[in-house]
């Protein structure tokens, strides 16, 4: 039987087409993204610095990651043109703070607005408006806005540094917000101290956790989905700490092996605007789970050893990432050296020609910006978004990451829930 499932929520709209057997089990699943804006064409012909304002608008949900990808692309361009740009540790740290703020608030929204909501519904529970979670994520955005101006769509990073020059006051404000957020994570999300969470990451303890994260896992257990959702077991991190990990091998990853495949798009008679992103010609999973394994975060890595890339591991990785990022942001903020300058001016962009590539670990995985620039003008621009990795469409024999994870699930509704463990986002995919 063929069914179409509409997936829509904060991150735009996707359509899942399922083929099921008589008992309703999923035999095939394909993913369609039906919106398109032509962002790459809009970038072409403009001053290369315009990418810093236009790129964030690719996505209102992870636009800050696009800003950082664009600025890294420009700095890489400068370097390859022989005019390397200097960025002080302070400017770098500030960019890191705002970048990971976006990760943290995304994960919280995903937990409350998508996962608890959708899994609860399958169990017949009335969804709640998660005001406290919205408040916490708005606090994280405030933390970011202190340095970046506003969220969404900030443009404070430039090749050479950042335009802001924070003082102790902004840093104190940020630390206060961070403590508030940490309290929310401990009280509401985990139901325990972060140390206790990290020290007891076995499935029994996780299922006993009092917070909303525990509730989500228990929902998944009741739905019999906890140990399902396995995909290929191939992981990729291209931004920070670049690694490729397959069941047999772990090695450094390199951007040169990345390609895009548009065989499934409307341009070639397919059913979607989204291109597939491939590494060495294959689908790889990117995102929090890939990052946890790549950096060998102990709790998640152990879970992965035991349960593989199941819903359990994937969900836990996203929550564990929030916890680990809190510590990271605190470290960044407390070790800022205010005497360093925020910005070291590079030579004029008009004197620069060449190619640039910028890679960033965005909330949902590796984000890539590539451009060719001639005398400061963009000749071509290409964006590969995280969702293109995880939600690409493969063939029957070689399904994409999320496609594979949905195979064999007993109903389309449950398969859709597994689909959401990847944190679906259609907005930037169809740039």
């Amino acid at each position, binding site marked *: 039987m063929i069914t179409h499932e509409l997936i829509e929520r904060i991150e735009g709209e996707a359509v899942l087409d399922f083929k099921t057997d008589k008992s309703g089990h999923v035999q095939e699943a394909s993913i369609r993204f039906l919106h398109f804006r032509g962002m790459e064409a809009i970038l072409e012909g403009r001053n290369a610095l315009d990418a810093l304002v*236009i790129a964030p*608008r690719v996505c*209102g*949900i992870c636009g800050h990651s696009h800003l950082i990808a664009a600025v890294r692309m420009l700095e890489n361009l400068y370097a390859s043109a022989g005019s390397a740009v200097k960025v002080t540790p302070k400017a770098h740290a500030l960019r890191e703070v705002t970048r990971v703020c976006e990760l943290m608030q995304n994960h919280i929204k995903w937990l409350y607005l998508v996962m608890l909501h959708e899994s609860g519904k399958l169990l017949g529970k009335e969804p709640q408006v998660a005001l406290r979670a919205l408040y916490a*994520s708005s606090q994280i955005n405030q933390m970011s806005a202190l340095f970046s*101006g506003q969220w969404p769509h900030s443009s404070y990073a430039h090749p050479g540094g950042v335009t802001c020059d924070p003082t102790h006051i902004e840093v104190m404000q940020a630390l206060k917000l961070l403590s508030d957020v940490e309290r929310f994570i401990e009280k509401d999300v985990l139901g325990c101290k972060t140390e206790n969470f990290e020290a007891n990451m076995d499935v029994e303890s996780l299922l006993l956790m009092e917070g909303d994260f525990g509730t989500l896992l228990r929902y998944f257990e009741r739905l019999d989905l906890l140990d399902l959702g396995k995909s290929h077991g191939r992981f990729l991190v291209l931004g920070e700490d670049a690694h490729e990990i397959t069941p047999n091998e772990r090695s450094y990853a390199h951007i040169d092996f990345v390609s895009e495949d548009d065989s499934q798009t409307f341009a070639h008679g397919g059913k979607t605007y989204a291109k597939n992103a491939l590494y060495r010609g294959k689908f790889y999973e990117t995102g929090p789970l890939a990052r946890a394994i790549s950096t060998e975060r102990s709790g998640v890595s152990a879970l992965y050893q035991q349960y593989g890339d199941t819903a359990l591991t994937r969900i836990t990785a996203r929550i564990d990432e929030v916890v680990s990022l809190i510590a990271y942001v605190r470290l960044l903020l407390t070790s800022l050296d205010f005497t360093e300058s*925020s910005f070291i001016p590079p030579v004029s962009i008009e004197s620069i020609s060449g190619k640039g590539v910028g890679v960033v670990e965005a909330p949902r995985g590796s984000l890539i910006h590539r451009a060719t620039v001639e005398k400061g003008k963009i000749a071509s621009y290409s964006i590969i978004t995280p969702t293109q990795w995880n939600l690409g469409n493969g063939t029957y024999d070689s399904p994409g990451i999320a496609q594979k994870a949905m195979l064999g699930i007993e109903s389309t509704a449950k398969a859709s829930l597994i689909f959401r463990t990847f944190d679906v986002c259609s907005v930037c995919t169809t740039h």
Partner: protein
Amino acid sequence: MSDKIEAVKKLFTSKSSRVETNKGDTYYQDLFAKCEARLNEMRAQTPANRLDFSELLEENGIDRREFMKWASATTAMLMLPPMFTPLVADAAVMMNRAPVIWLELQDCAGNSEALLRADGPKIDEIVLDIISLEYHETLQAAAGFQAEKQLDEAMETFKGKYLLFVEGSIPMGMNGQYGTIGAAGETFHDHLMRCSENAAAIVAVGACATFGGIPAASPNPTGAVGVMNVVKNKPIINIPACPANPANMVGVILHYLLTGQIPELDSLLRPKFAFGYRIHDNCERRAHFDAGEYVEEWGDKGAQNNFCLYKMGCKGPMTFNNCSIVRYNEGINWPIGVGRGCIGCSEPDFWDKYAYERPMADAKIKAPTGGVEKTVDEFGLGMLTAVGIGIGIHAAASAVAGKREKSGESHE
């Protein structure tokens, strides 16, 4: 020439506010009576949802005093005298009698984000949760087919009464195929037309829904246009900017609830309470502008001392919006606060008209008064033409809107 420079200085340093802040006692007494009657009417109506405002306030630990403080600030923002504060408070409590349907078309979801999670003092958030968001991907309980049904029901139940919020532009190219919605693959254009038919008014939110925004930037690959280019014969309120400021969205709903009317609009259909003055008029760096102290390069001494960003391409003097007052993310900051200029995102076609953070001189902006800008350093001429832009912007923008209207019609 020196006369001219003086005249220019005067213009650029004067407040450009064209909003009448005081309309006289009789006017306000009259309005007050009307609002009271309207609120009594609303009180009698059944709420569109069961969320209870007072309960939510309590749950979130907000006391009456804090709430009244919010109400008086909001009253001021709406440019009403303080005597309206209790009415605004009443209106907020009755937010669940103002049905709102929210559509997301060709966009980045930035406005939903700004509205629902990124911003708003706590009370604004509650106000927004309480309004009957009858159809919004984020807050509604339903998804998929169920959601489509819910949308149809909401439109039927609140026929002629709901405010239709629209985020995102409408791709007209390729018969609208660049954006379709729902299982039946309805185009954004058809979807918008269907949903606007029985709306009381339409609120276009963000640069995309108002003027086409970034998808409409040259070469406009999908033929994107704003709502006012396709919907005719309906009151339209534009809240441009990228993203639009949530305070202004709340303001429009409150105003509607309170008065049953849409707020006073400028020639681009923007509420005057929010777009009646320039960024520049209330900018925290304004004193430096007036003193001729500019940032010349990011990271320089001027940047460290928060000097004016005009030479770094700030479009504040030509941009009508209230972000210098309201700011973003709970008023915590705004672009100029972190040392980058305003990009003019609430003005039509700003993507093509205003280059990014480079001096206006490099932006090749044709001043409406004629002439092309030279460098800012050539003070007289630079200032003069920039002023031309500043004061002529409303006229020029209306001309653009007029032109677009024509091309919009040809799409129908």
